[in-house]
């Protein structure tokens, strides 16, 4: 089967910043993304866990998007403007997709 090169960008960010990030992505022309709940974790800011989280300011989500390699910088610029000062992780991995016209 024919596959095509793409980049998978995973942005783990505070829940309070989710809508700001997705708005910035859409303004940059990135209309396809998936938001995943994140169960818990640990990082420089300490441990955190989704269950029993009554404080809307402390949870995290992950925004995942797959994009053509030539559009990666545009996406990262838009995302970085939002996540720069906030707790979170941005990672980029190479991947293969089946239907290139969708990205």
């Amino acid at each position: 089967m024919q596959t095509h090169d793409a980049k998978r960008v995973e942005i783990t960010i505070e829940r309070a910043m989710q809508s700001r990030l997705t708005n910035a992505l859409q303004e940059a022309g990135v209309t396809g993304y998936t938001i995943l709940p994140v169960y818990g974790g640990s990082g420089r800011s300490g441990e955190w866990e989704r269950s029993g989280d009554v404080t809307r300011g402390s949870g995290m989500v992950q925004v995942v998007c797959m994009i053509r390699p030539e559009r990666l910088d545009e996406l990262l610029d838009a995302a970085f403007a939002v996540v720069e000062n906030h707790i979170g992780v941005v990672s980029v991995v190479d991947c293969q997709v089946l239907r290139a016209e969708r990205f």
Partner: protein
Amino acid sequence: MALLKGADEKSRKTLRFRFPSAPLFQITPNIYGRCAKMSEILALAADNLMSPIVLSFALGLAASLARSDLTFPEAAAKAISLYLLFAIGFKGGVSVADHGVDVTLGLSLLAGVVLSATLPFVAFMLLRLLSGMDRLNAAAVAGHYGSISIVTFVAATSVLEGRGISSEGYMVAVAAAMEAPAILSALWLVTRGEKGGRMDSQLWREILLNGSIVLLVGAFFIGWITGKEGLEEIDSFIVAPFKGVLCLFLLDMGLVAGRGMRRGRKALGPGSLAFGIFMPIIGSIFGLVAALALGLSTGGALLLMTLSASASYIAVPAAMRVALPEANPSIYLTLSLGVTFPFNLTIGIPLYLTVAQAMTGG
């Protein structure tokens, strides 16, 4: 009784020695009164500590500190908080429909806004004084102490119901009005310093239209519009099960507070911990002064004291993460959820009630 007598005898001698001419009949009733008042506060505190609500919280706290795997599913905790907000808002609205609207309602709302905007300045100064915390984190913490904890408010209404003390139904609206002004004060405190806070229209919308506020105020208006007839239709849902559901919610809050204590203990020093205990007491005094100026009932005074004493852990942390991302969330969440919330629930509310009763004659 023997102890009281002993204390009284000792005090008499001291007073005679220092003021030989002072007539004893003027002094002894004060000492008796003070001892009686103190034992009343202790009895009320003990009574409160043995209530199912506080014991449920203590169970959650103990389980969490002991690292039990007891957890509440996120959706269940959310559903329970929605129920409590709806019930408390609805009952407040029915109370207003029952007793009518007067000028005190508007003045109470105004007092709530002023208290919420003013308390962060007091908290900021106290925190800097006690702990020497940096300006940014102190401002972020101060914002939490101007705003309110709706669960502490619900617990206080439950204590009032248990003792058959009525309160002004519109205190629910005052609670909603006190949520946001503190955030502005906190940001102002920061912008006076080196680092600026970031407020945009989206953040404003999120603060003013956050789900808790919309549900609380919405249910208040439904209760106001439908009145007692509306309450009769659904009272088997929102009156009878209320305390049981509150117990479950506080069990979850205990788990959350314990988790916060475990994770955030390194972020707090003795000065910050002292702030977490003293600030609610100072806040309650501000609330009491406002309540007396407004002429609120004993129940209303307790609720305004509780609102002024409580610290936010839902709306303000979210706003601070957006507006002041450099501030350390471990500090403000641990203080409001791990120190002040348990203090208010166990010792604060009985203390405020006793003071409110003494000052309003209720």
